[in-house]
């Protein structure tokens, strides 16, 4: 009995060590990263991450919302790993405060600003000046002083000399998707969103596309958060997001790739 036990013991322990090693080896690789990202990226990033997760051991969890709100959360210490903002202001802010991992910041995408109306709208709006008409009573806009798409839109209208007259009609909402929803509901006559947002909704129609040269320079930067505890996984996803496959997906949704 004694002898039998010792032999068993030995092989059991060796097997156990191998098992533990194998197990920890696997878990050492598989991470879940948290990626706060601009609301306009909701659909495209979900599709990209599906493709990523099919190939990688890592998983990606998103937090979509207005970039200014997300940046504030990161500033307050939210456990983010990778941040994709819809404008440079938010990224610059975090950069100044030293919250970004040096050398990881990159300008990824661009977009186009459009004016949308409810799909069944009968109003004749074909230019920003038409927003001044009496029939246009309410215009949905993401918070014009802080949310990227709102800042872009108000600056554009300001440059066109229309902001003072448009401002009284503005219904400020949380982010670009909220803007989209407002216009879909028909409770406002028009709204400003990105072209990529208008594309995914059948309940709105684009009445004006702000020309790229006249409109604001829309830039989506990406960066790894300095305090991230999963930088390897973050880097892995960052690379995937710049891969040809991902670029195709971005283009499919209407985003412009920056190089």
């Amino acid at each position, binding site marked *: 009995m004694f002898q039998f036990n010792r032999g068993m013991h030995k092989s059991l322990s060796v097997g156990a060590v191998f098992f533990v090693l194998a197990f920890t080896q696997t878990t050492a690789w598989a991470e879940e990263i948290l990626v706060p990202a601009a609301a306009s990226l909701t659909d495209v990033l979900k599709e990209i991450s599906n493709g990523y997760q099919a190939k990688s051991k890592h998983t990606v969890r998103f937090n979509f919302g207005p970039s200014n709100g997300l940046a504030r959360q990161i500033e307050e210490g939210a456990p983010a790993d990778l941040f994709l903002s819809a404008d440079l202001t938010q990224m610059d802010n975090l950069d100044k405060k030293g919250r970004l991992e040096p050398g990881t910041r990159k300008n990824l995408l661009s977009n186009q600003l459009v004016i949308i109306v409810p799909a069944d709208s009968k109003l004749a709006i074909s230019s920003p000046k038409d927003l001044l008409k009496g029939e246009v009573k309410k215009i949905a806009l993401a918070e014009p002083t802080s949310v990227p798409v709102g800042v872009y839109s108000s600056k554009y209208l300001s440059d066109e000399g229309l902001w003072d007259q448009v401002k009284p009609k503005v219904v400020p909402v949380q982010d670009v998707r909220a803007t989209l929803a407002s216009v879909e*509901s028909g409770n406002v006559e028009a709204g400003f969103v990105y072209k990529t947002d208008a594309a995914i909704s059948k309940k709105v129609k684009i009445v004006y596309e702000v020309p790229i040269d006249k409109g604001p320079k829309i830039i989506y930067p990406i960066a790894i958060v300095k305090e991230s505890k999963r930088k390897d996984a973050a880097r892995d996803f960052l690379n995937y997001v710049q891969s040809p496959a991902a670029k195709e997906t971005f283009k499919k949704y209407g985003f412009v790739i920056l190089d």
Partner: protein
Amino acid sequence: MIFSFETWQITLFSISVGLASTLLILPFGIGLAWLFARKEWPLKSIVETVVLLPLVMPPVSTGLILLKIFGRRSPLGQWLYERGIEIVFNWKGVLIAMSVMSFPLLVRSVRTSFAEVNPRLEQIAATLGASPLRIFFVITIPLAYKGIVAGALLAFSRALGEFGATILLAGNIPGKTQTLSLAIYNYVQLGKDPEAYTLLGITVALAFLFVWCSEWLLRAERKN
């Protein structure tokens, strides 16, 4: 603390719409409370439940229901829009959200007061020839007025504190539909802390006022 023009505008707006909403629901609340306290009628329990719902449901749920009812795509919303009446993203939306959310509080308080009025007194008044209207205004209301005032105070303070239903139905539009609660939320979102704290101070001061008033009422009640 920053007592800017905006601060006062927001405070004034909140108080005036809150007051308007309380005055609006007062006759309906009193009438319904009387029907609850004194009469039995078919569907009474269903109406009681519906009236109580805004008190029990999350305010945003009520707000969503109101949005569906008054939104431009609904029959009622369409009908109102054709007559130039806008509810969504409008101060009228604030009024309706405040009214709906504070209504059950008013009804409950007034109903309890009416129930505490000895029905015998009303009956005797009837035998003395008083019409039901006279009985209501000369006997019932004066004897129940403390509960009515308490209910109105409660409704008013609830209206001032309204957030969930208001933000859905009326939106958070500065200068147009922004109440104290909505403004505080907005300022925090935008990182404007000093402004937020100013409004916080105002809401605390108002809350103190309310509690003091209702305590004063209770004390007056105890003296009698």
